[in-house]
């Protein structure tokens, strides 16, 4: 019989922030918290930039063409988090060699750069996800 545990909050007993889960294959255990994204964002980088959807991001700023910064609500414990990016769809451009990059500037701020092989370009889809430990 399938069982369901109904709760509002999960905490570890040994350490409140550490709950172990069994792997899909059953051969290993892993920290639940470690595998979760601590922040993600999808924003429109064209015209007046705007956050479309996000978790744990408080704001974005437009620093120029294809050049943005974003700020976390709750910071990571350090600036060594893994930030990954995706996106695209620059208006009116095809076969342009698009690329998008992201990096952690600090424990609470990311830098985003979008463009082509030759120039920065504003993208309609600028996405990022951050993994690491929250402070």
């Amino acid at each position: 019989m399938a069982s369901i545990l109904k709760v509002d909050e999960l905490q570890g007993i040994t350490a409140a922030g550490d709950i172990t889960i069994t792997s899909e294959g059953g051969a290993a255990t892993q920290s639940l918290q470690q595998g979760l994204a601590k922040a993600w964002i999808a924003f429109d980088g064209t015209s007046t930039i705007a956050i479309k959807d996000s978790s744990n991001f408080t704001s974005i700023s437009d620093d120029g063409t294809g050049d943005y910064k974003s700020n976390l609500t709750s910071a990571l414990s350090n600036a060594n988090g893994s930030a990954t990016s995706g996106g695209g769809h620059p208006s009116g451009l095809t076969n342009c060699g698009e690329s998008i990059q992201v990096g952690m500037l600090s424990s609470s701020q990311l830098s985003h750069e979008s463009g082509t092989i030759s120039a920065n370009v504003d993208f309609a889809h600028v996405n990022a996800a951050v993994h690491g430990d929250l402070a």
Partner: protein
Amino acid sequence: MTSVLNVDTIADKAGTGPVGLTKQSAAKVYVRRDFNNNVSDSSFNIASVTDNALGDQTMNISSAMSAATYSIVGMASRKANSLNYHVVMVHDSADPTTTAYRLRGSDVAGNDKDPEFVSTSVDGDLA
């Protein structure tokens, strides 16, 4: 003393929603796709993949997202000849929908290509 709960599903107190993971989020979709051989090496919450053309594939999601505003991140590379760098982007001719997102693989000069390793994941809310 360490304690262990053996259950199949964890839901909110009402039993109808997700447990709150404060400031944290589980990925709703991931897939590692071989564009060149048209196979998925591994995936989660992917129903099927449509091969539209060279460097052009659509990931069809099993359990839909609540809105088309979700975040897609990813990377691409070739199995060999690593000097010929490949990238993967949201396709310039189709915005994501709640049940699908279309990707475009290309080299850095913008020529459509089929990379062997195209990994993407999706963060956002399920419907």
